[in-house]
């Protein structure tokens, strides 16, 4: 994973005065599974369309293997896209759909035939050659869309919320299929989604975006465990985000109580944001934790209970396998390394990180 395969340099794009991407810089390495994650309107799809060639950036450059391809039309790019609503050609059979790109490249009939067979096998739809797209289920259409894209042997496959239209069970199955597909093909995937679970499951690298800015780039583990700001923390999983004051290194004051932590370098007596994941809160007997609280709500979620605990005017969300009935008094405790400290947003640019959903 060494080379920069795609390098977006200072991309800016706006529609009618509405800035969608502002000075975006991002590179994608070879053979990487990179996910652009964010709420709708964050610019993730626009970024993908700029890579695909469907949009031209107002300024900035798109580099592909160190060549500037900013003005190259989509049909000349070595990337292929799997569209959100599949975009299968309704008047062509499955075989004709898959053969479309190959015919344009003037491949031989036997080559095309082999390729179709191979691709259909790859997506577990052998024998579907002569079917029409509208006779297929959503999941099947999605696989054909993938097959149609990969027979052209692109160096990069762009996927625009490809699982968005599928139901939950199918979506989970397809996630595993996509991972194994990527391993088989050994090419780069750039994946767009607003579903954090998809992103965490499949990606090598996640790019969290909001309002046209990149909020954080990192591995799924980094993003989940060490969100850099409140937006990322809130967007990835449930979390308790509290205002706090960094007393000194490795000690933070939350709700008037002092908590040990492992973060350093935030100065002394500085206001910060503190993230605590619901599953990282330990509930103990009253007086046994750092602060006390009262359970106000309990919901059984299958693997765990989701409880709301009111403490000093803040409502914590807690995930625990232990059951505490409503109105029971509990103590709250958090391991130092489960406390994540983040800077408060300051500059104009960082305003975008404020949760806007």
């Amino acid at each position, binding site marked *: 994973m060494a080379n920069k395969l795609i390098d977006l340099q200072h991309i800016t794009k706006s529609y009618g005065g509405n800035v969608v991407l502002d000075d975006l810089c991002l590179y994608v390495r070879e053979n990487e599974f990179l996910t652009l994650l964010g709420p709708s309107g964050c610019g993730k799809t626009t970024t993908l369309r700029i890579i695909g060639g469907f949009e031209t950036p107002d300024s900035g450059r798109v580099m592909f293997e160190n060549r500037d391809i900013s003005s190259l039309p*989509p049909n000349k*790019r070595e990337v292929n896209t799997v569209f959100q609503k599949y975009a299968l050609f*309704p*008047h062509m059979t499955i075989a004709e759909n898959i053969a*479309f790109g190959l015919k344009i490249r003037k491949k031989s009939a036997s080559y095309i035939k082999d390729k179709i067979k191979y691709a259909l096998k790859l997506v577990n739809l052998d024998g579907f050659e002569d079917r029409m797209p509208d006779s297929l289920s959503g999941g099947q259409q999605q696989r054909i869309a993938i097959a149609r*894209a990969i027979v052209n042997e692109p160096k990069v496959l762009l996927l625009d919320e490809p699982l968005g239209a599928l139901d939950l069970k199918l979506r989970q199955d397809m996630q595993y299929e996509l991972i194994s597909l990527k391993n088989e093909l050994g090419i780069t995937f750039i994946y767009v989604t607003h579903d954090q679970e998809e992103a965490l499951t499949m990606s090598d690298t996640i790019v969290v975006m909001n309002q046209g800015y990149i909020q954080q780039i990192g591995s799924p583990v980094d993003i989940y465990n060490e969100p850099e700001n409140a937006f990322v923390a809130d967007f990835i999983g449930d979390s308790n985000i509290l205002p706090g004051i960094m007393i000194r290194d490795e000690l933070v004051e939350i709700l008037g109580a002092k908590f040990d932590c492992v973060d350093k370098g935030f100065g002394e007596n500085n206001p910060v944001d503190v993230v605590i994941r619901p599953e990282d809160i330990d509930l103990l007997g009253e007086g046994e934790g750092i602060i006390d609280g009262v359970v106000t709500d309990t919901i059984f979620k299958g693997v765990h209970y989701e409880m709301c605990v009111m403490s000093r005017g803040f409502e914590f969300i807690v995930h625990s396998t232990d059951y505490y009935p409503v109105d029971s008094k509990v103590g709250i405790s958090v391991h130092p390394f489960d406390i994540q400290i983040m800077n408060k947003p300051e500059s104009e640019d960082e305003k975008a990180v404020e949760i806007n959903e």
Partner: protein
Amino acid sequence: MKSFFGKMYLTLVLIFLYAPIATLMILSFNQSKSRSHWGGFTLEWYTGLFENEEIMAAFRTTIILAFLSALIATILGTAACTGMQFMKKRERSFIMGITNIPMLNADIVTGVSLMLLFIASRVSMGFSTVLLSHITFNIPYVILSVMPRYRELNRSTYEAALDLGAEPVYAFFRVVLPDLMSAVLSGFLMSFTMSLDDFIITHFTQGPGFDTLSTKIYSEVKKGINPEVYALSTIMFLTVLVLLFFVNYKPWGKQPTGQIKVMTKREVIVSSSGRGGRL
């Protein structure tokens, strides 16, 4: 009870709508040349029709005119719709605004305005002026038929074709046009019908010695219509009926991607405006 009165009302309205048609069909078999009494059954108007050079000439003119004007209007209109997809909203609404004028304008005003244009530009009126006029009032039907289809069109199929390496022109003919085809076809059919049935605009833009079926019928209204015209209209009506049946209730093969709709002038306005405004 309510539904009984409902059906009765419906039946009465249908009788009202179809009475003249039934009358014309009956007259086409009437031996007597007088309209007002029944002289016995005959097929002579049907056989004589094909030897009546005047009627056949008007019929040929009508068909050629309808076909040419619909064809040219379809090409111009489809190209215009395609071009408009690449325009800004304001430019598009400007063009759609002009397009609505002949649809909402009274035919007499449209006819008179074209007549004045031809008079002012000293063009002698005949087949070509009528053809130009028919193309003019036909293009809006094509546009109002194709434009909504463009809005429904899954734009990403075009992008998918580009993505798979197609040149834009190839992508249009291979992917976009097949999707539009049913709308283009109904645009063509509507244009054809409008041209076929038009009297008023033809009346103002025709020259001496030129006749379509409509203008021929109009000139005969006062001196009495040749029953062969009834025969011809009956044949045309039944032909359309059979064609419509086959187009819409295709018993064989795959369903077409979109049903081919044949609409009339006003219905086009309704359905195009009903779908959330005309751009």
